[in-house]
């Protein structure tokens, strides 16, 4: 008796759920999921803004902005599974791990979902294309140049990176090391990892200042690291001695530029990146051939190279002359 009531309950539920399903399916909006490394990071919030801008421009597109709480591959796989279950039309992901998400994304593609990666890439077999915000050599050179510009007599610089497994940061640092001979007198003394956590990055920056008293610049190619390093330098009273530079968000870095702890920094525009990723995901999901030119709306077009990736634009330098124009945007 008891069992029978339970069975009918379940049957009733599935019917109710089925009916809800039909109503949800009725609206034919294309759903594009913007999957980020973790929620609550300014850079990705700005990218989501760009994605929504693209959606408004395209019309009939719904953006699902989602990601795990902490930057883990396992968390992202859970998110991908739930997106597959919802049957979204496209997934645009900034991956925490280029390999671990591949099986899950392959499954998504098997079920007819368009998969692209942007910002932090996925291994080739796990996506249809990858959109780089800029090119790795250009970024590597830019972050080193930003430090060297304010060190005419040369000196010691150190790098404060994200995690040891961050694909982006490692590629940029490698590119920076490659062009190091072009900056005579600049000596890279250490690379440390703050794991993209504010407190750990702060401690690592403190450690750098203690270990290398003659340090002239800290280069942090991560938005979390550069802010933490700027705070550490300010707190240690070393503004003017140590220049903190790298990649940061104008809204977060405005105070640092004002105080002089940071003379200049660079970033591409995350709004443009989210916008372009959405535009590309939409094009591919509506049947555009990935081997030809792909439109990015107001950002122009891209053509994929032999690894199936493309670069969006050059990084942009921010300093006291233009920070006020950008700090309210992202």
């Amino acid at each position, binding site marked *: 008796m008891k069992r029978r009531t339970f069975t009918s309950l379940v049957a009733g539920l599935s019917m109710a759920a089925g009916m809800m399903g039909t109503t949800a399916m009725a609206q034919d909006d294309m759903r594009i999921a913007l999957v980020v490394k973790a929620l609550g990071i300014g850079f990705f919030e700005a990218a989501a803004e760009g994605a929504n801008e693209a959606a408004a421009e395209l019309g009939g597109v719904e953006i*699902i902005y989602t990601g795990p709480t902490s930057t883990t591959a396992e968390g992202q796989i859970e998110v991908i599974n739930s997106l597959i*279950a919802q049957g979204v039309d496209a997934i645009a992901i900034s991956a925490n791990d280029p390999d671990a998400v591949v099986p899950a994304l392959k499954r998504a593609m098997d079920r007819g979902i368009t998969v692209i990666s942007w910002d932090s890439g996925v291994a080739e077999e796990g996506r249809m294309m990858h959109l780089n915000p800029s090119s790795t050599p250009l970024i590597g050179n830019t972050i080193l140049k930003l430090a060297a510009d304010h060190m005419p007599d040369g000196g010691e610089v150190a790098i404060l990176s994200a995690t040891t497994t961050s694909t982006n940061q490692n590629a940029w640092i490698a590119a920076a090391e490659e062009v190091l001979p072009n900056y005579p007198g600049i000596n890279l003394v250490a690379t440390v990892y703050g794991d993209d956590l504010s407190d750990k990055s702060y401690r690592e920056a403190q450690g750098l200042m203690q270990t290398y008293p003659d340090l002239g610049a800290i280069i942090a190619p991560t938005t979390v690291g550069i802010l933490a390093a700027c705070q550490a330098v300010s707190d240690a009273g070393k503004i003017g001695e140590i220049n903190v530079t790298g990649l940061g968000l104008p809204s977060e870095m405005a105070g640092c530029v004002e105080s002089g702890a940071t003379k200049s920094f660079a970033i591409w525009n995350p709004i443009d990146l989210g916008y372009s990723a959405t535009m590309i995901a939409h094009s591919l999901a509506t049947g555009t051939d990935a081997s030809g030119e792909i439109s990015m709306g107001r950002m122009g077009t891209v053509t994929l190279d032999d690894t199936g990736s493309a670069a969006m634009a050059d990084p942009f330098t921010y300093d006291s002359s233009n920070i006020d124009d950008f700090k309210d945007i992202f």
Partner: protein
Amino acid sequence: MNTRSIPDRLQSPLERKLKSWESLLLLVAIGIFVANSFASPYFLNAWNLSDATFNFTEKAMIAFAMALLIISGEIDLSVASIIALASTAMGAAAQVGIGTEGLVLIGLATGLVCGAFNGVLVTALGLPSIVVTIGTMSLFRGISFIILGDQAYRGYPSDFAFFGQGYVWWVISFEFVLFAIIAVIYGVFLHMTNFGRTVYAIGNNPTGALFSGIRVGRVKFILFLLTGLMSGIAAICLTSRLGSTRPSIATGWELEIVTMVVLGGVNILGGSGSIPGVVIAAFVMGLVTFGLGLLNVPGIVMSIVIGGLLISVIALPRLWTMWSAR
């Protein structure tokens, strides 16, 4: 003649069963299932539910062994790091061309060795397990970071993928079957054997257990071995599912596993708890994260829900007793 009988128990067995932690948790699980079915049109779909099980199966395998360990009054916080080390060992072996059987053996062996290391430190040296395993948590993962740095091991043999991506029948995944088998084994082991009774005895009163002739150290050592072994099995499944190894694999799982165990009604101070409780807790956590995921609820809200669930499931019975005792 006026006879008065003294009851040999205050509640009938049925009443006790109904008021038990497991029944309360089962109600919560059913409630979540029903709520999810209404909240999302995608929830009641065999494939989607099958996908949802992957959110908890690997963690639950370790949670069973962890439950025994916590019932005995110890804890192992190094389990996620054992996964990292076992996965790294398997990855290194795969690079030199060792086949699937070899990889499985290496994964299990690494788990056992790590478990034995924890066990020796706790039982032979008498160190507190929470301190020992916080140490080995950094140690085991640290070794993985030294071996791999920012690199990854790929190129596992193609039949290795079966453990984490294979299906036994229709939507029933290999991992889910393994989870079910392990649950039954641990259920029988804890609730129907002498060894199981000794685990409770040790957790309730280690000194008393010792004077009753129970070899406390040996039992605890076996429990650490089992936890290591289960971490090795979880490492095989997770590595196979991801198809690659990085030293950051399974970061933060130790606390999720402990949460699962405590949510399952195991007393964190030792002495009580059951395997069915942990099984239901695994489903509850899996259903909550998957259900909220389908609604695209941000992960931080999921953490809040799990935290709130944990506190309320622990606090409600306590409040109930306080209220009914008034």
